[in-house]
């Protein structure tokens, strides 16, 4: 079976800035694929090209076999899009919004009513459907924003950071419904800068940074790239200087990388257990108290750190 999405050397330049640099990847039918990357990595720009909103500077992509540059209308018919920004009419109710967007996707009559009803059920807003969007909480708006993308039951759904800035409960509900939709056969391209989301949802992940796809594969494949490394997370007191400790610890034998963040230091190593004692000793010598130590198995965060030398979140 041909892939539902084939991205071929996509490039997008904004003047001097190259926001997306020769990206290529596929999504198989029925797959959830995550694009993981920090702010400004080029995730939205990529989705915008794939949904025909931006014209690529070069390269192309095939959605269900249709070229985004040459057959935009066929592409638009096969995809659902959940934009990063909430794209709704605040002065219309959720019901009116869903009905409007459903009709923009060619639904009408009975099938429109039925789909609007099903989507309201799915996003759990049936009771509040007749309230204006502007009276909704951020999480409720997000859910309607997602609902609009589902109305016409697209084969391929683009979701651009759909959980940004919402409470944990709403996020949980959203992640669960993405899995549910995928279970019913919808393929999903999901962008996020939360490692945990990519880890939980995706069959395969592409890591994007500064417009480049720097890693691509299943989670196992990606973490294997990092090698047999673990990450030690040291939590230190509020008044301590993580930078100083990190600098010192990086000199220890067996430490491959020491990355300080707020009250935390991430140590990349191939032998976590053996390193605990020397680390604690060295910290003691410097007069810094280590409160707790966690060992993390290799994860996507570590992959990103390994590949870029930076933490995913800044």
């Amino acid at each position, binding site marked *: 079976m041909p892939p539902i999405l084939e991205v071929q050397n996509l490039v997008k330049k904004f003047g001097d800035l190259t926001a997306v640099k020769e990206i290529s990847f596929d999504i198989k039918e029925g797959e959830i694929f995550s694009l993981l990357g920090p702010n400004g990595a080029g995730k939205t720009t990529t989705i915008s090209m794939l949904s025909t909103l*931006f014209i690529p500077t070069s390269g192309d992509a095939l959605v269900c076999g249709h070229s985004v540059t040459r057959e935009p209308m066929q592409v638009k018919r096969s995809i659902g899009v959940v*934009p990063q920004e909430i794209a709704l009419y605040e002065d219309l109710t959720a019901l009116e919004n869903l009905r409007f967007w459903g009709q923009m996707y060619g639904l009408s009559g009975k099938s429109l009513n039925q789909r609007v009803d099903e989507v309201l059920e799915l996003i759990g807003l049936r009771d509040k459907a007749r309230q204006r969007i502007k009276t909704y909480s951020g999480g409720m708006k997000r859910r309607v924003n997602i609902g609009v993308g589902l109305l016409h039951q697209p084969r391929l759904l683009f979701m651009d950071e759909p959980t940004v800035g919402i409470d944990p409960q709403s996020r949980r509900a959203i992640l669960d419904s993405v899995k549910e939709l995928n279970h019913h056969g919808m393929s999903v391209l999901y962008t996020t800068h939360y490692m945990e989301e990519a880890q939980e949802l995706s069959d395969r992940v592409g890591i994007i940074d500064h417009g480049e796809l720097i890693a691509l594969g299943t989670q196992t494949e990606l973490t294997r790239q990092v090698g047999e490394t673990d990450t030690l997370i040291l939590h230190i007191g509020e008044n301590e200087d993580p930078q100083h400790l990190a600098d010192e610890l990086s000199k220890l034998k067996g430490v491959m990388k020491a990355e300080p963040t707020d009250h935390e230091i991430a140590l990349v190593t191939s032998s976590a257990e053996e390193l605990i004692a020397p680390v604690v000793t060295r910290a003691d010598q410097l007069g810094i108290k280590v409160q707790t130590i966690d060992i993390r198995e290799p994860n996507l965060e570590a992959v990103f750190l390994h590949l870029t030398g930076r933490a995913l979140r800044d």
Partner: protein
Amino acid sequence: MAMRKLLLIALKDLRLIFRDRSALILMLAAPFILTIGMGAVTGRFSGRTSSGISEIPVTIVNQDNGQLGNALVEMFTSADLADLVEPVVLSDLDAAKILVDEDKSAAVIFIPEGFSTSIIPDPVTGRISDQIEIEFYSNPVRPTSTGILKTILDQFINQVEIARISGEVTVSQLLENGLINPSQAAAVGAAVGQEMSDVSIARSSITTNNITDSGEAVEFDILSYMAPGMALMFLMFTVAYGGRSLIVENRQSTLPRMLVSPTSSTLILGGKVFGIFLTAVAQLLILIGGTSLLFRLYWGDLLGMIVLVLAAAIGATGWGVLLAAVLKSPGQVATVGSAVMLIFGLLGGGFFDLSNLPKWVQFFSRITPNAWGLDGFSTLALGGTLKNILTPVAVLTGMGIVLFAISALWITRHGLSRK
């Protein structure tokens, strides 16, 4: 399918503006309240109607010297019209035209030689000469005045025509019986169509006088002038608001969302433009309906009024779309839109006399939809019908089309989304 989506987008916008309380205030409440204010100031509500326009200078050149030509001159110089027009009778057409060029006269009415005999059969031979028409030279700087004059003239010609076509009475009989007489010709709004005249005379804010009661002049209700002036001024607010919504939709990502739905950008733009147009029409009709009911204001011939509302909405929509195409932020459109509304309103709204201002100001007033719209509305209020307002209707429609074409080119070059 395409048409359905176009309408879907337009109706969505119409619904949105009617949910925006502050927009409604400017769209409907403000023109209404200002009209009331104007009415109070000018004494409309104290029972005494005052005329907004008076002493319109008109030059009549009568080379006909037949019965009809004389009757027409008589009508314009009659006491009935004394307050409204200030006629000068000349014999030289060129001299008369110079008066118009120098803005000393609002129009020249030229009755060519043989006008009467082209209508009234020769008493001896019974023959009628080739048709000869009265010529009307209007002063472009005084649209409203010329509109009024044209209406009075049309009134006269209408009666002659009716008599001739009906064939029941000959025109000479008509003259002998005094059926064509000045006061009746001046009974604007009451001429064509017997069934209509009864209703409209009763309701009309334009006082009409019949033969027996000829003490008063034709009065032109000041509100018939102020109400359209206000409506047209705030029409510019509505179209600027509509134009602004295009940029707002881009900002709030609903425009990009429409663009990624299976809908062409042309259709989306079309829907947005149609939405502005619908809102403009709705606003004008509500204002016209409201003032008719509350102030018993007579807006004139229904068909003419509807066609003029559509044309004014088209012309104004063109400006709204242009603002949206050229400007970049909602704030800019709001600011520039308000400025345009005021400038257009002042220059084209007929709130004061422009004849003492520089020529370029007078010219500028002619590019406003306000001036042309007002032109048409006053003609209608004075009893004109669709055929008397064809010029403003054509200009307004043309204005809308030209402005829309410019905007479309601009948008094509710069993209509908992501400016």
